[in-house]
């Protein structure tokens, strides 16, 4: 921390004295580099933090630059009001570019955004208002506090100020809840939706952020160069910015900024060999994705594996789970229905994964779902949690109809789940995984980022306290700053349960929680599930480990080929003839040792 502060102070000091050391032309190059740095931060946020491929950012840059240019030259506005309107226009353009994100996924998004950028380019190249290919010239340089900023030296300080603010805001955003949710969405959008993240809105916000930074860069560009033409907003500019962010490291704020500065400088040095420069950065992009996907920022960690361990991570490891001291009381189940599914049918092309499935789970029960692989158990979870809407049938959770609702809405109604194949946010450390789920606010809470940052800071403190409680309870404090994939499989399973519980559910869906666990871990798991129920959470459990099912569950339902073949108390179901024959005459089914699901064998 102290070293980081020293580094920041040294960078600021160097940035302050830099103009005293430069002659006029290098100063201009630096001014341009800072503008690219702003663009790179915007792309870092959309691509690196939120995982959205946004190739329309150059259009936002252009919208702002052209708006500033036209308002100052045609409408007689001063630079500052024009620039503010330019940034707002770019923000609006970002929002518009993000609208397709409500419906379509990454690949489509990439191309739709590129299509919009090309359409914008076509517009400004052909419209007489924007001066066609000649562009708009004669944009007045701004002045502030009596200083004439037409000097590139003074303009540098204006840019440096904006860039500094931009860096601080980006860092603040990334480290707090909005950014954390975006990172969660980037890593696994299904899991993010299942803990309540409103993925479509987050995507739109990601595009808007790209628009905001693009807008700032555009207005500054208009003020610096005094001239805007289609060539400055072309697709190759977009790809240039993409190269900066990829080579610098898309997940790293510092990497993106450094990438922008270095590539701008390199392009300037190679101005007489532009095609070779392009060849070079094309090669670098290809080399980056193959050999160093985290770019320059990822290299130190790669070279020295020890650096990847963050401070405080060394201690502890996972603690044994300590069950709650209060003995389990068998009589906390009420008469309330926690979950009801009626006549659920779901097909995948020709295969009917679920055929007219109905079940009722009383609040306070631990309810087991068993059946051979491919019998529709996970599909039922996907239907309940909103990942696959059913073709027919109705799902109610605590009396509320949730049929066909989005996962994030179902999460808000108090349903949490885990996944058969583990869906942790793999670039987030354990604590961030938990924090992302602790956050129960809607996306609209985020207005505070613009108007009341102190509220964000306070909210963050509360979140951290809640997360610390969850981490402590599940024995994960010792691994809180480690990346889940660096931990043993059993620990990852426990983190996933902790994450689901961090969302404060009333109904918890566990998909094969014992798969891949060793016997002592299974023992701990049984304690965890009992404690969860004691806290008043209804548990539905898909499991192949019959010992666990028999000892934990109040009722069991058996699936075969998408149909329910038995339901009732575990002992009754175990002796049901239909159940026995579904398991191909294996009469010892319920004595069989725990089986490892085929999906886990692949891990």
């Amino acid at each position: 921390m102290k070293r980081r502060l020293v580094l920041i102070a040294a960078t600021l000091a160097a940035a302050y004295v830099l103009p005293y050391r430069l002659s006029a032309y290098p100063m201009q190059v630096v001014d341009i580099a800072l503008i690219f740095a702003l663009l790179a931060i915007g792309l870092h946020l959309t691509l690196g933090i939120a995982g959205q491929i946004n190739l329309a950012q150059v259009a936002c840059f252009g919208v702002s630059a052209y708006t500033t240019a036209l308002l100052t030259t045609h409408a007689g506005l001063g630079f500052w009001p024009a620039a503010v309107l330019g940034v707002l226009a770019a923000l609006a353009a970002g929002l518009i570019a993000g609208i397709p994100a409500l419906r379509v996924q990454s690949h489509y998004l990439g191309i739709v955004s590129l299509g919009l950028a090309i359409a914008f380019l076509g517009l400004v190249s052909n419209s007489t208002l924007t001066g066609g290919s000649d562009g708009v010239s004669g944009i007045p340089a701004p002045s502030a506090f009596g200083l004439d900023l037409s000097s590139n030296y003074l303009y540098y300080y204006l840019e440096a100020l904006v860039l500094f603010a931009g860096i601080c805001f980006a860092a603040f955003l990334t480290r707090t809840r909005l950014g954390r949710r975006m990172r969660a969405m980037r890593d696994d959008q299904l899991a993010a939706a299942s803990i309540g993240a409103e993925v479509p809105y987050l995507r739109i916000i990601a595009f808007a952020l790209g628009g905001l930074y693009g807008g700032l860069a555009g207005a500054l560009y208009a003020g610096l160069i005094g001239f805007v033409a289609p060539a400055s907003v072309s697709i190759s500019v977009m790809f240039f910015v993409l190269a900066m962010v990829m080579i610098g490291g898309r997940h790293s704020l510092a990497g993106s900024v450094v990438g922008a500065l270095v590539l701008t400088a390199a392009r300037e040095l190679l101005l007489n060999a532009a095609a070779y420069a392009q060849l070079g950065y094309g090669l670098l992009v290809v080399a980056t994705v193959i050999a160093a996907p985290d770019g320059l920022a990822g290299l130190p960690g790669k070279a020295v594996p020890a650096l990847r361990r963050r401070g405080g991570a060394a201690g502890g490891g996972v603690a044994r789970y300590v069950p709650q001291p209060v003995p389990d009381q068998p009589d906390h189940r009420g008469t309330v229905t926690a979950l009801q599914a009626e006549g659920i049918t779901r097909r995948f092309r020709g295969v009917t994964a679920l055929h007219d499935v109905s079940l009722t789970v009383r609040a306070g029960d631990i309810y087991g779902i068993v059946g051979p692989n491919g019998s529709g158990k996970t599909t039922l979870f996907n239907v309940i949690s909103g990942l696959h809407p059913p073709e027919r049938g109705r799902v109610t959770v605590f009396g509320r109809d949730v049929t066909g609702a989005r996962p994030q809405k179902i999460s808000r109604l108090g349903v949490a789940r885990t996944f058969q194949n583990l869906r942790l946010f793999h670039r987030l450390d354990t604590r961030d995984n938990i924090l992302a789920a602790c956050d129960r606010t809607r996306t609209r809470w985020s207005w505070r980022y613009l108007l009341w940052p102190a509220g964000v800071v306070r909210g963050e403190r509360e979140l951290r306290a809640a997360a610390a409680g969850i981490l402590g309870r599940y024995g994960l404090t010792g691994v809180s700053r480690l990346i889940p994939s660096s931990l043993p499989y059993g620990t990852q399973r426990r983190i996933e349960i902790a994450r689901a519980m961090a969302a404060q559910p009333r109904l918890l869906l566990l998909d094969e929680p014992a798969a891949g666990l060793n016997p002592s871990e299974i023992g701990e798991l049984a304690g965890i599930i009992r404690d969860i129920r004691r806290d008043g959470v209804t548990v539905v459990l898909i499991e192949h480990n019959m010992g666990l099912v028999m000892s934990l569950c109040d009722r069991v339902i058996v699936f075969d080929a998408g149909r329910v073949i038995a339901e009732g108390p575990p002992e009754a179901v175990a002796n049901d003839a239909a159940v026995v024959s579904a398991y191909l005459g294996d009469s010892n089914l319920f004595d069989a040792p725990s089986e490892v699901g085929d999906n886990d064998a692949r891990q």
Partner: protein
Amino acid sequence: MQVFVQTLVGGLGFGAIYALVAMGFSIVYRTMGLVNFAHGDIVMIGAFIAATAFMSSRLPFALAVLIAIVLTAAIGLVIERVLRPLEHRDLDLMLIGTIGFGILLEAIATLIWGATGRAVRTPVGASPIKIAGIYVQPYDLLIIALAAAAAAGVWYLLTRTKTGAAMQAVAADYEAATAVGINAGRSNAMAFAIGAGLAALAGSLAGPVLYVNESLGATIGISGFAAAILGGFGNIPGAIVGGLAFGLLSGFSAGYFHGSSDLVTFVAFAIVVMIRPTGIFGESTVNRA
């Protein structure tokens, strides 16, 4: 009527080129789930090779096209080989890798052919011929015929040959296909080579109707991509229908909106994508939990 039919045939001619580009996008996408952003630049390279062979080396048009197809197919193989470590692992990264290759190919084109473009003359004569009282450009008909032949060839390969069956299997289930002994890498390479070949065909055919320069890839590539989405990405018949539809859309909007036709076309496209993201023939993609 005359204007309408001419716009129609011209639109179909462009549409056939877009359909070829869209088929190239789709064949790679359906096999490995990847959108090849370098595809447009492969179109451009193909156009340059054919233009050079036809205009500078004075080879017959058919031979020039063939050379372009073979050379660009080789480029497709190189791209696939370099990006293979990312296959079936990180598609977003791979996608950015193809953007990197696009940047690279554009630079190579500038280094070889310079910044000025090439005008290519029509191989079949520029005077319109009269069919049923309507004048049409013979070259438009040639484009449509060649594109139809290429589509038939792709259809035959995918549905009637063993290689095609292997490619379908990899597309349907990568792990299962690998498990039964299909060389998925070879299938992917094949898809890339065919995709690049189709791109080269599209580029060489576009030469005489457009001006060949280094931005050709961006314009045709984007339109072909839009066409592929319109038809349902990865769906070969969809790519053809989408390509023709896009050609007609931009043909008619150029007639009515002139300079802002790009904008009109892409706004129309964006609206279609928002209403029906999976395109006309696309199956909804299923998220597996």
